[in-house]
């Protein structure tokens, strides 16, 4: 069948809201875009465990420690679901992990910021998971079946992440003067990077957008970002805290909150590897991978030994 014809059938399926499955024909660029996006998403889940892991041993109570552990374990699971979805597109797990460790593959820049106080764990759950959820809810309807299914599973688990984060801040916001200022400080530091999570402004996209045509994405960066601002600007009132933006203001005519300018130089700088923790994060990942090698090899050796023993017994 000629390629144009295949492309037509493919686009028809997308237009009719039929999901694309792993063995279906798809344009090369669709495969590549999905592979890049899903694997980067997987890397983000995995690297995202590091800033939070920093606080497991220092969580203020046993309850908080158990909750944080459970949340981080969820993130590891999210990484797994996504790597599995990416593998259906024909890249091996080993290759993906290698691309992460070599610096070739990216992960969400938000995880290159440090977690300086316990309040940061609250701010991450509320703002960072909150921003991720906005994206992920949209992605439950993405056109590639395995990715969409992974997103459904992930979204079911995410809402606890955001709620526990908000609750951490809520407790601090009702605490001592020192706790209140910790709370405000964490919000100040995480607010702008959270807004950057949605990516550059729509106006920076000059060409027609295939991700929309292929329904990999269904909302633009600015649309999602605006939804997020509208949500958070209301929720923060419950905390009695302030978002660090003097331009934040309800706009009656737009029916949305207006907000100030994002520092895009900072964004690109962190993407390029110059964020506060880029090096630390990659070093931690590489170290874990290298030091885990003997475990992976031992497990395989053990499985092979058991297998050959089983075969010998069957033969006897």
């Amino acid at each position, binding site marked *: 069948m000629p390629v144009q014809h295949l492309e037509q059938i493919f686009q028809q399926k997308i237009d009719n809201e039929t999901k694309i499955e792993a063995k279906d024909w798809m344009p090369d660029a669709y495969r590549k875009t999905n592979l*890049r996006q899903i694997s980067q998403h997987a890397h983000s889940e995995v690297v995202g465990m590091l800033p939070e892991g920093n606080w497991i041993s220092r969580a203020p109570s046993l309850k908080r420690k158990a909750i944080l552990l459970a949340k981080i374990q969820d993130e590891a699971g999210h990484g797994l679901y996504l790597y599995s979805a990416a593998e259906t597109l024909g890249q091996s*797990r080993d290759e993906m992990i*290698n691309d992460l*460790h070599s610096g070739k593959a*990216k992960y969400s820049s938000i995880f290159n910021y440090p977690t300086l106080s316990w309040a940061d764990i609250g701010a991450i759950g509320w703002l960072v998971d909150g921003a991720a959820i906005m994206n992920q809810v949209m992605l439950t309807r993405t056109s590639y079946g395995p990715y969409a299914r992974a997103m459904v599973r992930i979204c079911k688990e995410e809402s606890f992440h955001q709620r526990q984060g908000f609750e951490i801040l809520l407790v601090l916001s009702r605490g001592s003067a020192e706790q209140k200022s910790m709370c405000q400080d964490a919000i100040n530091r995480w607010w702008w990077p959270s807004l950057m999570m949605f*990516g550059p402004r729509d106006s920076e996209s000059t060409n027609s957008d295939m991700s929309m045509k292929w329904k990999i994405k269904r909302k633009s960066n600015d649309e999602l970002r605006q939804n997020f601002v509208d949500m958070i600007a209301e929720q923060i009132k419950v905390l009695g805290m302030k978002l660090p933006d003097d331009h934040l203001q309800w706009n009656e005519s737009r029916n949305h909150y207006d907000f100030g300018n994002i520092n895009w130089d900072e964004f690109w700088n962190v993407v390029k590897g110059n964020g506060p923790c880029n090096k630390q994060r990659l070093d931690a990942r590489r170290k874990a991978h290298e030091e885990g090698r003997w475990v992976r*090899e031992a497990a395989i050796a053990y499985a092979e030994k058991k*297998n050959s023993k089983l075969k010998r017994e069957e033969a006897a």
Partner: protein
Amino acid sequence: MKNNFLQKFYYGDIPEEKGASGQYTTSHDTTQWPLWEVFIRSKNGLDHKHAGSLHAADAQMAIENARDVYTRRMEGVSIWVVESKYITASNPEEAGELYEPAMDKIYRHPTFYELPDEVNHM
């Protein structure tokens, strides 16, 4: 085809040329844990349903990992694992021929038969 129309940098979709260059190379593992498909029965009385996949050195480890990632919130009472390489899938390109025989047998459906309104419970 150069994929130059993808200009938008969505969450988790940063073009690689915009990132830091990689100077670090890891040595690949010499062996890979095989891939397993996981099926979970959510409660007795229901079928096992495909839940996802994972890597594990052997079946026992696959079950233990499946428990850890797919049943953390009591999603299951029973787990099956099977090495992915043992699954044979039908070819989507042959779907037309494969399912064609079912297509023209509408008399297999109850709605094919028009009965008088007086006939109840059928």
